């Protein structure tokens, strides 16, 4: 999305591995626009790109690590967060960003997600929520609303989804926001803020998966999902996370929900390290 001065293109050139194009994503997939916002946010944040590491798990969303021209790690399914935790703790000068999907982060990696939030590790997690497992052909996932059709819920989903902002809030995340890929401007600003926020920040991106989820849920074109988002989105900054759960056809509450301060894991570790050194010296 170049602006009138053509800056968009230079951002792409700066932060995208153009030698890796064409990318693997389907036409009208939401991951592309979300990545575009992310690259712009990196630029806007003023962070030294040489010090940013992007860590992904496995899935269509997890392929982002392969396209950013930054130190980038494509790990195993669900394990990007603990990998990033080790990386960040070993060198606190690095900025760790986890970019992955709803299944990766909230199903197989769900335990890591809540524990990273609890620890308040310095880390930004960007979660592409397309309500299903895109990469493996559209199976039900932990955020799939009740009654939706997926390749493994042919008669309708009989489970209830996680409300991710509420889960993250209960776990202790200090920054929580959600936008759809229609809200490009807000998404870019939110990602910029999240990148600069000390502690654990979480950005949920509601994103079309026309190829599989959309096809099975009466949104076969990317545009169908965008139209649905337009109709259903309500911007409510500061909304109580318990009120932002998503149903099949109900409203999609978007905005920045949580922005609070709490000592980060790193500051707490530094306190303990000082104490340890003093104790050993005196003994």
């Amino acid at each position, binding site marked *: 999305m170049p602006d009138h001065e053509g800056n968009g293109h230079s951002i792409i050139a700066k932060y995208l*591995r153009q030698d*890796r194009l064409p990318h693997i994503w389907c036409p009208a997939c939401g991951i592309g626009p979300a990545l575009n916002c992310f690259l712009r946010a990196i630029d806007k944040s003023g962070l030294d*790109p*040489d*010090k940013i*590491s992007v*860590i992904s798990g496995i899935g269509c969303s997890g392929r982002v*690590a*392969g396209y950013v*021209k*930054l*130190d*980038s*790690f*494509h*790990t*195993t399914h669900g*394990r990007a*967060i*603990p*990998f*990033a*935790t*080790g*990386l*960040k*703790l*070993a*060198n606190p*000068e*690095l900025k760790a960003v986890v970019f992955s999907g709803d299944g990766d982060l909230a199903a197989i990696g769900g*335990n*890591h997600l809540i*524990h990273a939030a609890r620890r308040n590790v310095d880390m930004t997690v960007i979660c592409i929520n397309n309500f299903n497992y895109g990469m493996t052909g559209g199976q039900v996932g932990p955020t799939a609303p009740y009654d939706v059709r997926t390749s493994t819920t042919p008669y309708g989903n009989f489970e209830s989804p996680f409300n991710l902002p509420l889960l993250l809030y209960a776990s202790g995340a200090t920054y929580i926001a959600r936008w759809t890929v229609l809200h490009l401007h807000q998404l870019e600003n939110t990602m910029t803020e999240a990148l600069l926020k000390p502690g654990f920040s979480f950005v949920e991106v509601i994103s079309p998966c026309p190829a599989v989820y959309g096809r099975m849920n009466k949104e076969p074109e990317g545009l169908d999902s965008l139209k649905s988002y337009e109709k259903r989105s309500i911007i409510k900054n500061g909304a109580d996370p318990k009120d932002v759960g998503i149903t099949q056809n109900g409203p999609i509450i978007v905005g920045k929900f949580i922005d609070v301060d709490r000592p980060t894991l790193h500051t707490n*570790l530094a306190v*303990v*390290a000082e104490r*340890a*050194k003093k104790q*050993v010296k005196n003994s």
Partner: protein
Amino acid sequence: MTDNGHLSGEFFINGDVACAEGAISAGCRFFAGYPITPATEIAERMSRRLPVVGGTYIQMEDEIASMNAILGASWAGVKSMTSTSGPGFSLMMENIGLGVMLETPCVVVDIQRAGPSTGLPTLVGQQDVMQARWGSHGSYEIIALSPDSPQHMFDLTVKAFNLSEKYRVPVLIMSDEVVGHMSEKVVIPEISAADLIYRKMPQIGSGPYHPYKADESLVPPMAIAGQGYRFHVTGLTHDESGYPAMTAAAQDRLITRLVDKIKTHADDIILYDEYMTDDAEIVVCAYGITSRIARYAVKLARQQGIKAGFLQLITLWPFAERRVRELASRVKTFIVPEINRGQIVYEVERCSCGKARSLSVPHSGGDVHKPETILAAIKECHA
């Protein structure tokens, strides 16, 4: 304590503590783990020691997280370790494979107890040694060491870090409950930078950096995060650039190198010890705690005039194939006692190529072999 934080002198400590001190001496400055008997003392020691020497200790939510955290730390340029026992070792498998694929130096300690499942949490086993070799899916080679005493725990932990940095591969320390919990004298030497290996790094100004382009050593130089290389690494099959390459040809090229980088350096990696093998007709082959009992049984056999010898496997993987083959050409029988129902005995049998007989002395776990049991097996073969 020395300036660089490691202890030196004589100590009376258990194997777990000796392992932790070995790690500190080797320059390990990141530990992630999850409590489990009989490995917990390693984590506890690291939690006490690391903050004092400028390192980081963290207890993760499980062993899967611990394994990934040490990989991440290694890519940030810090030597890292985790420790566990059977149940946790099983959980680590997928990401030990990630460590192999990304060629990530790190050390994983398994203080083996008797299984399967929860088994005998506080009692000894040597039942994970084949899992160490084959436990992650896919074709690969790995390095695994087997210590027999607290002193050995210290020495081999330092060695494990050196091997992992040199060959860019996770190195497994396959210890056991008895070695982990027994206390003995441990001499910790002064260790200087010259005793330690750190991964080869890319030379600045040598052109574009290809994360997986290796020279004849087959081990590529390793950049770390934050140096400005902006590299990409993936658990997918990849080419020298680090980018995914989804073809059978790329797979063959990568896997052949990953296997060969260990195999062609087997002589540098493989350690073993021998006792009275020169004229032996029967060789007892053992590792870890069992090697101490086996050595004693061989001594008893010699006193009774039996030409018995002893081969201690210190490196389990890659297997001491050549040495076993050489011995097989002149001994009649190998006797392999191990605290499992027969694992390494199959390797010994394979390498004997039918020239010598292999006899298993199995043990289901919970305690160690009695010397008489091994002696009886020697006598039976002698008769």
